[in-house]
């Protein structure tokens, strides 16, 4: 890094943009919590956060995508209203029934990024085939639900089956819708950056 003056260790122009993108994606996943679509048969609406996790992995890759979701959790933990329904606070990550879903996000984003880009170096997403894209999101979704169901069971002292019935089943069909939406976003000509 070309810094010279005294001992200022500049982040560097490229890394600075990556930090900015990771932070903006974290904020975007948080903002997605506010855009909800009514669920036909559950009291909890469908939010786009998981779509944000998919897209973070796809657009930012495993390192900065995973980092973005770490920022999301850290900001939420200290009180940014980024969790579902605009809540925040460490308590959500330590005690809420849905905590497993939240903790899974960085892992899921990193996994999706790794599968989509075939490693840690980013490739042009226009060259990534549909099976790989969908496969990555299916794997990421599996991680999210595995963490989510286990967390639900632990927090509420339920069996895994009970936890699955209460906290997961009604939402799974909509993950397919989000995957389709993510594919649409990736294939959209309207995304200018990257």
């Amino acid at each position, binding site marked *: *890094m*070309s*810094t*010279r*003056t*005294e*001992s*200022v260790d*500049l982040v*560097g*122009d*490229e*890394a600075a*943009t990556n930090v900015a993108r990771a932070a903006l994606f974290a904020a975007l996943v948080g903002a997605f919590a506010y855009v909800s679509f009514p669920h036909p048969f559950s009291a909890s609406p469908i939010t786009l956060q998981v779509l944000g996790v998919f897209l973070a992995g796809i657009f930012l890759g495993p390192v900065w995508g995973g980092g973005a979701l770490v920022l999301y959790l850290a900001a939420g933990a200290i009180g940014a209203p980024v969790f579902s329904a605009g809540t925040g606070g460490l308590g959500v990550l330590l005690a809420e029934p849905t905590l497993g879903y939240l903790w899974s996000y960085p892992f899921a984003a990193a996994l999706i990024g790794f599968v989509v880009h075939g490693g840690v170096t980013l490739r042009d997403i226009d060259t990534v085939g549909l099976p790989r894209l969908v496969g990555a999101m299916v794997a990421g979704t599996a991680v999210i639900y595995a963490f989510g169901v286990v967390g639900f069971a632990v927090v509420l002292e339920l069996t895994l089956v009970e936890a699955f019935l209460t906290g997961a089943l009604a939402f799974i069909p909509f993950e397919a819708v989000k995957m389709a939406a993510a594919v649409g976003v990736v294939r959209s000509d309207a995304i*200018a*950056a*990257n």
Partner: protein
Amino acid sequence: MIEVDGVTCRYESGGGRSTGDGSDGVVAVDDVSVSIPDGEFLVVAGANGSGKTTLVRTFNGLVRPDDGEVAVNGTSVGEDLVAARTTVGMVFQDPRDQIVAATVGGDVAFGPENLGRSHAEIDRRVEEALAAVNMSGRADERVETLSGGERERVAIAGALAMEPDHLVLDEPFTGLDEPARRSVVDRLRALHREGTSVVVVTHDLRDVIDLADRVVGLSRGRVVVDAPPAEAVGTLSGLDVRVPESCAPKDESGAGEGGSEPRGGGSGPHRDGSGSPKTGSGSP
């Protein structure tokens, strides 16, 4: 002292993405030489896509020229980026996207914190910078609650906290209403009077022509005029640059169209990460 010597910036059009700013060529800045002495109030005028944003971004190494040399106080920018960026403070077009903290004071402190200054010195700099933009005692206010003009002034304070010799502002009046513009102009006048060199990049001279010592007009990346304002206006109205009505030629057709710079988008070929000139990241 900023010395620009024969600078040419090309941007890589390999990605095929249009920057949408009307410049078809791949040369954003074409063999420009200009020098800015300490204390001068300079206006860099040009239409959308004339290369003015790219040119000033070479002053602090945000854009690395493909040819030519930029030196700040005698030191090449590429050799000491930190020195260039502390000597040349820069304020960008949309203040919302350059304010990094949720509170006014937290944002203004960002620069001096990066320079590793002591807490006492950071406090002093924040206080002085806020005073210079007429926002003393408002360090704890939330950025969200500020008006557009106040946000612009916070962005200026953020640059001033680096204690620069030169303050460069890119389209500082975009989106501001009349009173807000006047408050920013007042602050620039005061800063200039106290010895800071001010460079304003604009397509609209009306607010700053009275303050300018010199106007450099750009068109298609080339300097077409470099003169005191009174001499420069005649040439400028032909460049899609708005000039005060008192100075404008009788036939107004076209002259007023320069004010159509898109809101929010950066001017110059710098709008997205891909189609921009090489940004200086690592060591040369």
